[in-house]
């Protein structure tokens, strides 16, 4: 039995579960709308629109829930990027994923109470939670109230620009999700991290 750290408090796990479920709904319905076609139906269009709208609002509320606890608890310590020497640490981590794992090297930045993420994780989480999510949510809300969008932005339709930004941010977040899912399998065992995000305890390698 390896050592265990309580790294994922209840609020985080609740947020994460809700976020994950509704994000998958958004992803599925979003793709379905973007590629809507009378002959090939992933999700019927009206249902896709309705569930995308509802899930979007849920994610928005969940995001504020996350932000609230982010500000009020100590979890934010894991998100503080130390810019000095960042590049070097990222390269070390990448090198580890590309070569190190296969040589059964020790992880260069093992999970600890003070820092649960490795530099790569930290960077992507910050990017997703504080760049992509705000863009996604802001553009999503705008598309929900299109009358608020300016009609013309330097010759390009305002709604078009908003929709493009929304779809692009959605695409990047989906890419993140795939990577996220894959690297979650690289814990102590294949499923160890998935257990952690459910029960809160991190198994140390």
């Amino acid at each position, binding site marked *: 039995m390896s050592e265990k750290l309580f790294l994922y408090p209840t609020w985080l796990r609740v947020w994460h579960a809700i976020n994950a479920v509704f994000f998958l709904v958004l992803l599925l319905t979003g793709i379905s*709308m*973007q*590629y*809507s*076609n*009378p002959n090939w*139906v992933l999700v019927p*269009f*009206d249902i896709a*629109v*309705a569930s995308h*709208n509802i899930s979007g609002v849920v994610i928005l509320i969940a995001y504020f829930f996350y932000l609230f606890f982010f500000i009020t608890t100590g979890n934010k310590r894991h998100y503080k990027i130390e810019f000095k020497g960042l590049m070097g640490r990222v390269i070390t981590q990448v090198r580890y*994923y590309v070569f190190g*794992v*296969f040589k*059964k090297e020790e992880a260069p930045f093992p999970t600890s109470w003070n820092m649960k993420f490795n530099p790569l994780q930290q960077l992507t989480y910050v990017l997703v939670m504080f760049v992509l999510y705000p863009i996604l949510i802001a553009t999503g809300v705008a598309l929900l109230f*299109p*009358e608020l969008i300016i009609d013309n932005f330097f010759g390009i*339709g305002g*709604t*078009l620009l*908003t*929709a*493009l930004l929304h*779809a*692009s941010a959605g*695409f990047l977040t989906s*890419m993140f999700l*795939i*990577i996220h899912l*894959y690297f979650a399998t690289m814990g102590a065992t294949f499923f160890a991290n998935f257990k952690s995000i459910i029960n809160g305890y991190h198994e140390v390698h």
Partner: protein
Amino acid sequence: MKQRYKFTWLLIMLLGLFVHSQAQQNQQCLKCHGQVFYQYDNEWTGQVDKRPMNPFYHIDSVKMHTSVHKEFSCTDCHSPDYETFPHSGELRMEEKYACIDCHGGDENFAKYNFEGIEEAFMESVHFKANDEKFNCWMCHDPHGYQLALRSQESIKDVVSLSNQMCLDCHDNKFKYGLISDEMPKDLMETHAWLPNQANHFTKVRCVDCHTQVQSDILVSHKILAKEEALRNCVQCHSTNSVLMESLYSHKVRESREESGFINAAILNEGYMIGANRNVVLNYVSVILFGLLIIGLLIHLILRFTILKKK
């Protein structure tokens, strides 16, 4: 050469005279029909009586001046006997012209195909339910119709002009009451299934859902029974949107194909989920996604093979 100029001038002056007299003539009617109140000399009492004009007999002279028949005198369509007031009681029995009386078989208007329109109209729910009682003027305001799709620049204006033709009646129990004993149903309620309904009604025409595209006329006039109306979102919200043959049929030709967007014509004024995709971005995203999956798969396979061996 000089001779031609003189002739042109003469024409222009004649035309000016005609327009002027037409305006003056109309002014004769509009001094009552263009006002909220009208006045006349009461020969019996010797006084000037002032009365309210029936709002249904009120004519908006500004609208009249933008209509397709702006060159007309009132008496081109109405009996000259209307020049006297009080109008003779018999005048209200006067038979009105139909569009086809003037436009039928006329080379100048061939491109509109009035005959085809009339044929389609005769198959519409309105005509089938009411016969002659429902005629072209019910939608085409004789004192204000202006071409929408054929001449308006912006889709928003096309939609608003066209929809107003239906709403003037379906949203007005007095006009509706001329045709039916029932009250018109609330369109907000009957179209509640349509999300962002208010937005749809400014971006798409009633006829885009309530008719089927007809190749021989620009705007189909065969209003279908409500059961046959378009309800399937994807008919519009997809790459082969029906709107490209109806509402956007005019713009499609001038559309900027090189912009890289599917159905780019829509983008001048809006963005339609499902119908506007950027081809380049689509390819780029599929490729990036593919590369990512391949990369991760290789990593996964290596993890299993190399690590298992060790």
